[in-house]
């Protein structure tokens, strides 16, 4: 047994921060500044630990720890380097909400930390049971976060829906694990891989059914059609300060888990699952784009757009191991865009409220030119306009799919990307060309939000102009 506590350093640091935060808060009744310091320590420490793991284990130098429960490799450390900063940015953008809920703010901060840790563990799990636990740690935190304002319009509904449907998906996922165990006799991903690589299963029905059920659970997490149905209601209902991390974190963790499960233990069955992934990708792209067009609420529109993005990301996964780097590229750039966009939504419509009707954005360019410009940038990037990171991301996943002979999926993705222009540009038109409402207030942008939006915008532009460093890095973000 390979016991190395440095291997779980990110988790340990986060848990320490959480315990400190809760204990100290109960004892001393700290102000929200101290919560912020605790959260910052947790996130910065965990990110640093992930960077250290990345330096040690990137590329081919991955290792398994704790009886093959955890994998520390380029894949997991990249996920850590992504999810902790993203969660930190999300929390900064939602700080208004932390201040707005009084003493319960400490719980909010703690839950954000736990959720980030769960998301990272999902990427690092080398055992299906471990993966399930990580998924639940992540999900349950998110259920609570989504309904955190309680009396907020739609927040309780959002949380309950998310919880009920999430439980259904978890149950199906667990059943899938059981079937995989039945077929291979192990829940270790690397054990299953060794078994499947060396054994020819004549009637692989059990195994294949297991894959199907695993895909249901993970498809739910990343909001891929047809398992996306929860996303619009939850995105719209949950308070503005939560949605950014909820959207970005779920994509990072969900796709990390999906990629590892598909490529590591089930890599030899790629001919069976790749077509299913392709169909899910296609339907996500179509459904996400079509539904997004009809929306009049920004957060709902972004929810459907995230369904479409899930489709684009899965487009990379049809290439199997070769597509993992491109998946990471797309996921990481999209995470920054979506955190930035929801941070702005939290400013414009309020961090405690759920809804964010498009009419709130009329004439935003006049009231707050920088916010409007940043929002415009995120929209252009999500639409995949050149010189933004979104363009490079789409180019990367499409190239992966072409190399894997899924040309039809690429053509469909291109058509959907053009259709997506309609609703991304519509927001820009609303912001820049429609007169503002007379009673529209000049939005107050707090420092945390400013920082989060600024970082997201800089990443979006810089990666759009200079994508090569990141494209090189993601080549090393591969599972063991």
């Amino acid at each position: 047994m390979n016991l190395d506590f440095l291997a779980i350093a990110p988790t340990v640091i986060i848990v320490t921060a959480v315990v400190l935060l809760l204990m100290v808060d109960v004892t001393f009744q700290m102000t929200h500044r101290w919560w912020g310091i605790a959260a910052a320590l947790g996130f910065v420490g965990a990110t640093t630990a992930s960077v250290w793991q990345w330096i040690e284990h990137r590329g081919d130098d991955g290792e398994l720890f704790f009886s093959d429960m955890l994998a520390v490799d380029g894949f997991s450390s990249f996920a850590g380097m992504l999810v902790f900063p993203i969660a930190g940015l999300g929390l900064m953008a939602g700080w208004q909400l932390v201040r707005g809920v009084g003493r319960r703010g400490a719980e909010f901060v703690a839950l954000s930390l736990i959720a980030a840790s769960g998301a990272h563990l999902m990427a690092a799990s080398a055992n299906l049971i471990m993966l399930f636990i990580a998924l639940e740690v992540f999900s349950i935190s998110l259920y609570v976060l989504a309904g955190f304002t309680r009396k907020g319009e739609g927040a309780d509904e959002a949380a309950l829906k998310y919880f009920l449907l999430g439980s259904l998906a978890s149950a199906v996922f667990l059943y899938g694990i059981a079937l995989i165990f039945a077929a291979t006799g192990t829940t270790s991903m690397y054990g299953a891989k060794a078994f499947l690589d060396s054994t020819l299963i004549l009637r692989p029905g059990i195994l294949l059914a297991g894959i199907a059920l695993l895909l249901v659970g993970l498809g739910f997490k990343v909001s891929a059609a047809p398992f996306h149905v929860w996303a619009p209601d939850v995105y719209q209902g949950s308070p503005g300060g939560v949605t950014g991390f909820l959207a970005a974190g779920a994509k990072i963790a969900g796709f990390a888990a999906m990629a590892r499960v598909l490529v590591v233990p089930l890599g030899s069955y790629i001919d069976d699952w790749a077509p299913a992934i392709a169909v899910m990708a296609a339907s996500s792209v179509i459904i996400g784009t079509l539904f997004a067009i009809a929306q009049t609420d920004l957060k709902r529109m972004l929810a459907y757009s995230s369904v479409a993005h899930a489709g684009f990301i899965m487009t990379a996964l049809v290439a199997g191991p070769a597509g993992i780097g491109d998946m990471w590229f797309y996921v990481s750039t999209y995470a920054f865009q979506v955190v930035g966009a929801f941070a702005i939504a939290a400013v414009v419509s309020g961090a405690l409220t759920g809804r964010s009707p498009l009419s709130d954005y009329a004439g935003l360019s006049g009231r707050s030119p920088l916010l409007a410009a940043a929002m415009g940038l995120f929209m252009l990037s999500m639409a995949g306009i050149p010189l933004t990171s979104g363009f490079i991301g789409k180019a990367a996943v499409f190239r992966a799919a072409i190399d894997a002979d899924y040309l039809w999926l690429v053509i469909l993705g291109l058509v959907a990307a053009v259709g997506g222009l309609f609703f991304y540009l519509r927001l820009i038109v609303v912001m820049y060309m429609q007169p503002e409402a007379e009673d529209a207030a000049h939005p107050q942008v707090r420092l945390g939000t400013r920082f989060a939006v600024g970082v997201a915008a800089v990443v979006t532009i810089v990666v759009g102009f200079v994508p090569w460093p990141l494209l090189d890095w993601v080549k090393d973000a591969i599972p063991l």
Partner: protein
Amino acid sequence: MDLSLSLIIFLPMGGMLLLFGFGKRIGEPGAGIVATLAVVGSFLIAVVLAFDFINGDGPAETVRWFEWLPAFGVEAELRWDQLSALMTLVVTGVGSLIHLYSIGYMRGDPGFGRFFSYLNLFITSMLILVLANNFALLFVGWELVGLSSYLLISFWFERPIAAAAGKKAFIVNRVGDVGFILALMLIFSVFGSLGFDTVFEGAHRGELTVTMATAIALLLLVGAAGKSAQLPLYVWLPDAMEGPTPVSALIHAATMVTAGVYMVARTGAIFELAPIAAATVAVVGGATALFAATIAIAQRDIKRVLAYSTISQLGYMFMGVGAAAYTAGVFHLMTHAFFKALLFLGAGSVIHGMSGEQDMHKMGGLARKMPVTFATMAIAWLAISGIPPFAGFWSKDEILGVVFERGGLWQVLWGVGLVTALLTAFYMTRMMWLTFFGEPRWDDGVEPHESPRLMTVPLVVLAGLSVVGGLVNTPFKATLEHFLDPVFEAVHLAHAPDGSLAWILAAVSVAAGIIGIGAAILRYRSRVPVEDGLGWRLLGNGYYIDDVYAGVFAGGGKLGADWLAFRFDVRGIDGAVEGIGSLTRKAGGWLRPLQTGFVRSYGLAIIAGAVGLLAWFLSRGGI
């Protein structure tokens, strides 16, 4: 070397980012101090790094950041040679003084922090421009200075004139950029690379035909003319005076507008192969110099005099680099940066003291009220008028000398330059007299006063530079020429005459300056003549070129745009796009009822999906 050279760019970049995020919080004067320190830091580093060059034994160096566009063989790479060192020193040196001055000038402005973050952004962009080692990075800097100049011109964007001026500068510069981009494409198509070394060595080896070289050089000229405000793309610069005065000094006198001159000097290897294009550069420069000088005579706004004067002086530089006198052109660029920045800052000090008044007819008699401003501006006045031993004399004289020495039709251009020198002396004297001498003509309630120390110290430093700056390159001791020699090693340089001819030419140009000054003193000594004849109005309105442009280009463009927008677009493109759009929207509308909001129907959807997946997987292998 690597780090320190990068730091030259990173310091102001860091200042920009810091102030962009926290400018308001840092407040006044902290934000200004941070920004100033960043630029001063860059300047000091540049001085240290340039030491080897000054000693005369430093090799040119490159610093590679990262591979930027591998597909085009483009790397993000900096180049540190004598030319970029000189430009860096001018940009950061004059820039530091202007930053310092701005702390005083912008006091109390609500956008104080924002202003300094823009200033640092500008310095960053300009440094990228002059330190780039390939055309792609040069272009990045080129566009960034355009952006920051737009931001700074329309800094007081709540004033419609300022916003319109910013827009105008942006659009006119885009016209120039089209030429520049086309030039870059041609360069890439010929050499398969955008790196300076590859391109210039290739040009030297004869990989470039004369036709192609001419085409590239002319397109580069279009780009340079846009950035450096040359005919016919000069129209944006006078309007750009709507920005805060330090901006005019920094961008529209000392640094950004000289980017075109720098670019022509940098690409000398290409212009050398295209004598027609080089001559065109010189002719454009000469014509602009004379044209703008005549307009400057009849301006009443003190900043507009300086704006047209800048255009005119840039014309000199173009004349110089067009005549292959790259050292002389760059030399004039440097001295001009000193005295024109001084003039602008002095004018800012006057405007500051006069509570925002810019009309010279309402000034007069300020010499006693603002002694430091007056004394320093007087030095700049003599410098720009070409009176020895001030800085402007040496550089202007060298350009004129080179142009004369080339003989033939070039001597016509020399004549143009000489007349311009006379006009320059005239309108600068007019400006000085109307502002500082004669009877006070102030509006009621205006109490002129000297500006604070923070603003006068930069004036004094610049005045010192305007006195001695010219001595770095005199016919007696051509230090700058030797300094820049390694850069222009491969290029055939034209040289100034020597011997008695040099003395005669110098005497003639000094005489022109003195005549101009004398004529203006005679005219404005005792009274302010009424200047509203037809000729004065024609000149005062800049030959109505703006109105012609508005009618022909803007009007014609609007007609064309109207046709495109209301005919072609509505019927043709919109028909197609809206067809798709309305189809998808309708489809979206039909689908919408599917999203009912009931958990049970959502659960059903998930189960249905699960069944679908199960069906697929089970069809691949039996149970």
